[in-house]
């Protein structure tokens, strides 16, 4: 489903230094697979996700999604993005829209659904993430956990083939992490294709098919969650795990 080949991505900082975010990065993610990406801050995890829907552009290499080279000039990037949902660390709900409008908007603007249809889908999804009773509330009146669940419903409303989560629980107070992880676990068990950047190793152990450890723009080590708990091989992996566990 996702195929990345020899991807390089370098950022230029404002003071003209070059930062290598992805270095000769290759990986394959199969349909229905739940992949958890871990790694220290600045190791290129977000950059990889953002290159998958071209919020950032790769410098060289290739990324295929469902066999389509998404960096091909003939590709309409908006169509690719419809199929790849992204959940952000800071939720990024639309503050001037109610909860229901947040979930409904893209269905109408992008998918061209009529209002009734979109509302029905939205209500179903808000129910699924357990927040239907807040449908007419503005995001500012919600807790972080509630906002993130709305953000997940907003992504689900597009029926994406792939869902990406970039540290979706890192900005939450500890008591709210569980409610968001629960929703993510439900999605994982539905057989969705998910790429999840998180340091919640409990989540990784419960639902992931594979854990990828990244450092300095490269994959250092990958395997099942169990592998990382029991016998990680590389020194860098061990060091990192000792910090987060």
């Amino acid at each position, binding site marked *: 489903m996702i195929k990345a080949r020899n991807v390089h991505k370098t950022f230029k900082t404002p003071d003209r230094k070059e930062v290598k975010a992805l270095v000769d990065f290759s990986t394959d993610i199969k349909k229905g697979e739940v992949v958890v990406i871990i790694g220290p801050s600045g190791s290129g995890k977000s950059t990889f996700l953002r290159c998958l*829907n071209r*919020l950032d552009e790769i410098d060289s290499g290739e990324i295929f999604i469902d066999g389509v080279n998404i960096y091909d000039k003939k590709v309409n990037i*908006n*169509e690719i*993005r*419809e199929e*790849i*949902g*992204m959940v*952000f660390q*800071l939720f*990024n*709900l*639309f*503050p*001037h*829209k*109610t909860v229901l409008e947040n979930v409904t*908007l*893209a269905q109408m*603007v*992008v*998918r061209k659904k009529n209002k009734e249809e979109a509302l029905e889908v939205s209500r179903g999804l808000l129910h699924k993430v357990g927040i239907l009773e807040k449908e007419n509330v*503005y*995001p*500012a009146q919600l807790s972080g956990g509630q906002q993130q669940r709305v*953000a997940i419903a*907003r*992504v689900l409303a*597009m029926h994406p083939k792939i869902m990406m989560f970039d540290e979706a629980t890192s900005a939450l107070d500890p008591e709210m992490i569980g409610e968001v992880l629960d929703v993510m676990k439900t999605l994982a068990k539905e057989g969705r294709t998910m790429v999840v950047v998180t340091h919640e190793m409990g989540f990784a152990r419960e639902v992931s098919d594979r854990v990828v450890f990244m450092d300095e723009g490269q994959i250092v080590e990958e395997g099942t969650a169990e592998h990382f708990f029991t016998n990680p091989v590389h020194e860098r992996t061990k060091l990192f795990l000792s910090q987060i566990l």
Partner: protein
Amino acid sequence: MTFNKRSLITLGVLAIVTFAVYYFFSRRGITYIWHWERIPEMLFYYGGKSAEDAVPRVRMGILMIGFVLTLKISIASIFFAIIIGTIVGIARLSHEPVTRALSLGYVELIRNTPLLVQIYIIYFFVGSMLRLSAFAAGTAALSIFAGAYVGEIVRAGIQSIHKGQMEASRSLGMSYAEAMRHIILPQAFKRIIPPLAGQFISLVKDSSLVSVIALADLMFQGQQAVARTYHAFEIYFTIAFLYLVMTFTLSMATQYIERRLAISD
């Protein structure tokens, strides 16, 4: 509630100034014979207008006719300034260097030359080439002038919106234009209402400059009335008051809109 306080303060200041003028005159022994009784008929009067139109009815006096024209030109200019400003604000942030340079050039050119000069140029040069009426030329000049300032305000408004908003919109499959229209601009406009209100209040006041191209606005009619009656103080006070009515209504309206939009905060 802050609004009520501010309106009271403004009215209070106006009253004090009026009183001070009277006081100053009386202390200096200036004997100016006030003719306030001549003002009402310059606003409304009952009667015929001319030999051809002699039917007596309530008619607008000279100042009220000017007031209506100022109102029209201000509303039209605000409308076009918003359109120009939005386009310019977006263009200033374009990825196209040419678009960026052109919009910057427009803003700098307009902001660094006097409005009066722009009005003359548009009226005598552009206006006569395109056969614009004085009203069209005046509106064009004011819109182009205010549009440059509105453009800068809009640009700042867009830049103040967290970049996560654009990223969330784009990642849902919206085009840049769709994201701008549904997500970025509504939030930006909400945030820039106070500076926009200030800009539009300036525009109403600046509209008095179009009297130089013989557009019969409030200022122009007032000058005519002064030339005819010599009641300069009364008339200019009335004019000032009428401008105040407009700017005041405008700031009242924007504060109302601001309060209404605050529900999502």
